Each structure stands twice: as structure tokens, then as C-alpha cells.
């Protein structure tokens, strides 16, 4: 077991960071915000912690705390600037932000180490620490996918005008999603810097953005487990078990992405829905299930955005 872990630890670490980064894109997307800014904050997190620990002698915990606070302030300001942008326009603006961070990393020698990057970052977090961070993030994402928050997020994503007409402060909610996304990106950067003990401009930029988005889409864009599944598939399985086909990794990744997009639009996490036993229970409850149906008795938050509604035919409803 220990041998297996030692042999796979590098892949596992890659999967954990990839999952964090994919989750950072997901939390914005599920509120209807198409933003890649979190990949820029991945750089802010990695360089910020690296600079404070490796060159200023700070401990990892205070450095990470300060970097997360800086991320929150910067991302809130960026959210105010980008508040009027939507969809592709917002995506383009945030891609520009990521590229600006990369250029800054190359140019700001005294802090980032320029093209050579930062070395000697203390490996304080370790695989267990990063796994703990990811578990916490996924737990929060899973909880906020259910109940009133889950419904609000789905509403925001589907119909902004309706959301505001139903009392949701759309701009405020988008800003919260943007900041939470940036914080997760920053945590991914802090984790990566701590695991690799080195961070260079090559660890940042367009390819990282594409990897995060691909892992998310393949894993499952809307389900909380999607980033974890995507991270494990892309950064672990495809690296560790591709064998003779490893020379064609790009082809395998592309083919897998296409197959998932075509046959599983909800990603690999969408397979859970096909196996969802709750759906059968709800169908069995039928029209006599009453207003609360299966979820009655837990007011206000019993029903979830995850619940798959039962088709009317199964409930005996006709026109």
C-alpha cells in the first residue's frame, strides 16, 4: 500500500490541484458567471505564498492567510470592474486577466523570480493537507448545491431576469461567486507551490485554463463531484495508466473529451443521475405523495436542485 502510494503520489498531487482548479471554474459557472479569472488567482496564490515563504521567511499558514485575503480584495475589485460583462465578453476579459498575471510573473523579477520562477518554497502542506483543503471545498460545494442556495444558483444560471424578479440580487450573487471562484483558484496555487516547492510562469497561462475547463467538462460541469472526477481522470489515470499510448496522450484526451461531450453532456458525474435510486422512489410516491412528496417534512430546504423531477406521465398527469 505504502509502495503504491509512493509510486502514485505525484499523480495524486496533480489530481488534487487539478480538481481544486476545476472547482474554481465550476463555482463561478454554476452561478451563471463564465470566468477564468480564478486561473489568474492561481498564479497570485502560488507566487504570493512562494514570495512570502521562500524570500521573506514567513510561515506557510500566515502567508496563505494573507494571500487569500489579498485574493478576496483583488477579486472583489475586479468583479466591480467586470460587473457589466456577461458570457463570452466576461470570459474574454478574464482570459486577458490571466495573461496579464502571466506577463506580470515574467516581468516582476524581484517578487516572482522572472522567467526562472521561485525556488525553495517550503513543502508545508503535503498531499494530506491539500487533500483536506479539497475535501473542505467539495463539502461546501456539495452543500450549496442543495436546498435554497442550490435553487438560487440554478435560477441565476437559467434566467437572470426571473431571478431578479423573484428577489435575487443578481449582481451581488455574481460578485460572491466570482470572489469564491478566485479564492479556490488561489488555494489551488498555494497548494501547487507548496507541493512542487517551485513555481514558474510556465505553470500558469492559457494551457492551465484549458486543462481546468477540460477536466471540469469531462468530470461534470454542474455536479460538485465533477472537478474531482475530472482531476483524477486527467491528472492521474491518463498520466499513470496510459502505458504504450502515452505518446498519444493529447489524442486520447481529445477523443475522451469529444466522447463525453457527445454521449454524457453532464460529464462522467452525470452517470450518477442514471443510477439515482431517489428518482424511482419519487416516481413510486405518485400523485398521492402530496405536496411535500418524498421531501416533505424538511421545510425550506428539503427539495434540492439535484433532485431530478419526475416526468408528468409517471405521475399520472395528463392534459
Amino acid at each position, binding site marked *: 500500500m505504502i509502495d503504491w502510494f509512493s509510486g502514485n503520489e505525484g499523480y495524486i498531487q496533480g489530481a488534487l490541484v487539478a480538481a481544486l482548479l476545476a472547482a474554481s471554474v465550476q463555482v463561478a459557472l454554476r452561478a451563471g458567471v463564465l470566468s477564468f479569472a480564478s486561473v489568474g488567482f492561481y498564479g497570485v496564490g502560488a507566487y504570493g505564498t512562494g514570495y512570502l515563504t521562500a524570500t521573506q521567511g514567513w510561515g506557510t499558514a500566515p502567508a496563505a492567510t494573507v494571500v487569500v485575503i489579498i485574493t478576496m480584495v483583488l477579486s472583489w475589485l475586479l468583479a466591480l470592474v467586470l460587473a457589466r460583462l456577461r458570457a463570452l465578453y466576461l470570459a474574454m476579459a478574464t482570459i486577458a486577466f490571466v495573461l496579464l498575471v502571466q506577463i506580470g510573473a515574467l516581468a516582476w523579477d524581484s517578487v516572482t523570480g522572472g522567467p526562472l520562477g521561485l525556488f525553495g518554497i517550503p513543502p508545508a502542506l503535503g498531499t494530506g493537507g491539500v487533500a483536506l483543503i479539497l475535501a473542505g471545498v467539495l463539502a461546501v460545494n456539495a452543500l450549496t448545491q442543495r436546498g435554497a442556495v442550490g435553487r438560487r444558483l440554478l435560477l441565476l444560471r437559467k434566467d437572470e431576469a426571473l431571478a431578479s424578479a423573484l428577489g435575487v440580487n443578481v449582481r451581488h450573487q455574481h460578485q460572491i461567486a466570482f470572489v469564491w471562484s478566485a479564492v479556490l483558484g488561489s488555494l489551488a496555487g498555494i497548494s501547487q507551490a507548496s507541493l512542487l516547492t517551485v513555481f514558474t510562469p510556465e505553470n500558469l497561462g492559457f494551457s492551465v485554463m484549458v486543462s481546468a475547463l477540460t477536466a471540469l467538462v469531462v468530470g461534470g460541469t454542474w455536479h460538485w463531484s465533477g472537478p474531482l472526477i475530472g482531476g483524477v481522470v486527467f491528472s492521474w489515470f491518463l498520466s499513470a495508466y496510459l502505458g504504450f499510448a502515452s505518446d498519444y496522450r493529447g489524442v486520447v484526451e481529445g477523443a475522451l473529451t469529444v466522447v463525453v461531450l457527445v454521449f454524457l453532456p453532464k460529464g462522467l458525474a452525470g452517470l450518477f443521475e442514471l443510477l439515482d435510486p431517489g428518482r424511482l422512489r419519487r416516481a413510486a410516491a405518485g400523485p398521492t405523495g402530496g405536496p411535500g412528496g418524498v421531501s416533505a417534512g424538511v421545510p425550506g430546504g428539503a427539495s434540492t436542485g439535484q433532485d431530478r*423531477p419526475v416526468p408528468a406521465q409517471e405521475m399520472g398527469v395528463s392534459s
Partner: protein
Amino acid sequence: MTAVLELRDIKVRFGGVKAVDGVSLALEPGHLHALVGPNGSGKTTVVNTMSRLVTPTDGQVFLGGQDVTAAGPHEVYRRGLARTFQGIRLVEGLTVRENVLLGVQELPTARSRAGRRRAAEAADEALERMDVHHVAQVAPAALPYGVQRRVEIARAVAGAPKILLLDEPVAGMSAGERQEISAVLGRLRDDGMTMLLIEHDLRFVLGLSDHLFVLNFGQLLAAGDPAATAALPAVQEAFLGRKHVPA
């Protein structure tokens, strides 16, 4: 008596187009008002201005005597203005009950645990009131059009709003479905709900409303008792496109 909702000299321009041009009207408590007008007369823009989805170029909006011209749509909702849309807008991926819960969960009263419990009870009551409780766990998209509309009205009334705006609730419906919705609106009126019904079919609102507003080319053409207002030659001309010839 303070009007529940009041528009004062509202003007809305989209570029060079005057969608609404100096409309003033007041909605009295407990009345079912109807706002009618031919297609393109500015009815939906008036409703969007009331619910603050559209910001007027000029004029003021008052809700319960308070100026809400600068408020956001979420704020007027929380202050008691609910609405439905011309096209049915139920959220795909949520059940009927979850859709109705959306109508109560953002209210200031639903912030505490007890408040959330009361809000959920109110949602269940609204489902019963609109007679859609038996489909609470159903996907709305699979329901007949008329039932979907009742679910949408249940969502709007679940939070016990001070005023309900209904934008063409019977558009595209069969005669039977129109009758169903007419009965629902009648029940709400009997319960004392203040409503504004937007419609282009003059006949539908005549037997239902207490007060009629007629809009044409973005201006208020006439207002008053429904039958008397509908009989005015200017109103007949606006709807039929010709001078009214008395029988």
C-alpha cells in the same frame, strides 16, 4: 386611500423609440385592474417599469407610497410586488414545488429557520390554492400549458405580495384553459389581492376587472369603469382600427 402602486408621468425610450410616453396611473387596494392595448402599445414596458426590470427615462414609480424609481427589481419584489411573465418562466431542473419555493425563499421573512419553515408552508398552501399540489414533485415542462401557468401564479402569490402583475396570462391558451385561469383570478380577487392584468384581448378582461386602463402608442388613452371605457369610440378605434359606428 394610498394607492398600492402608482406611476407618475412615466416615459421610457429605447433609442429613438418612445415605448411609453407620459403614463400616470394608480392601482387601488383589493381591485383587479386591467391594462389593455393593441400589440406594441407599450403594455409590457409599463409592467417591466413597475417591476423595475426597465428603468424609466423620466417619471416616478411609487410602491405603497414609497418612491421605488431607483430600486432594483429584487428590492421591489421584497417589498411586495410579484409578477408573472408573458411567456411561462418556470425553472427547468426543479420540481413544481421547488419552483414555488423560489417565490418565497428570498423574502426577508425567510431568513431565520422558523421563517424558512413558514415560507415552505406558504409555498405548500399556494400549491393547494392553485390546485397543483398533486403535481408538486413533477417536472413543470411535462405539464399542460394551463397547469404550468397555475404553477407560475402559485409561485407569485406564495409570498403574499401586496400586488400581483400578470402579463398576458392567457396568451396562447385554449378556451378551457382560459376559463381555468379566469376562475383562478376571480378567486384571488375575492381574497382581496390587488392585481394588474395585462391583456390585448378586451373581451377577456371585461367581465373580470374592476377598473380598465387602455394604452395606445405608449400613451394612456382611457381609464375607468371597464364597460364604459371599452365602449368609448377612441378605444374601439384603437382595437378595431376604424371609427366606432354606433348600433
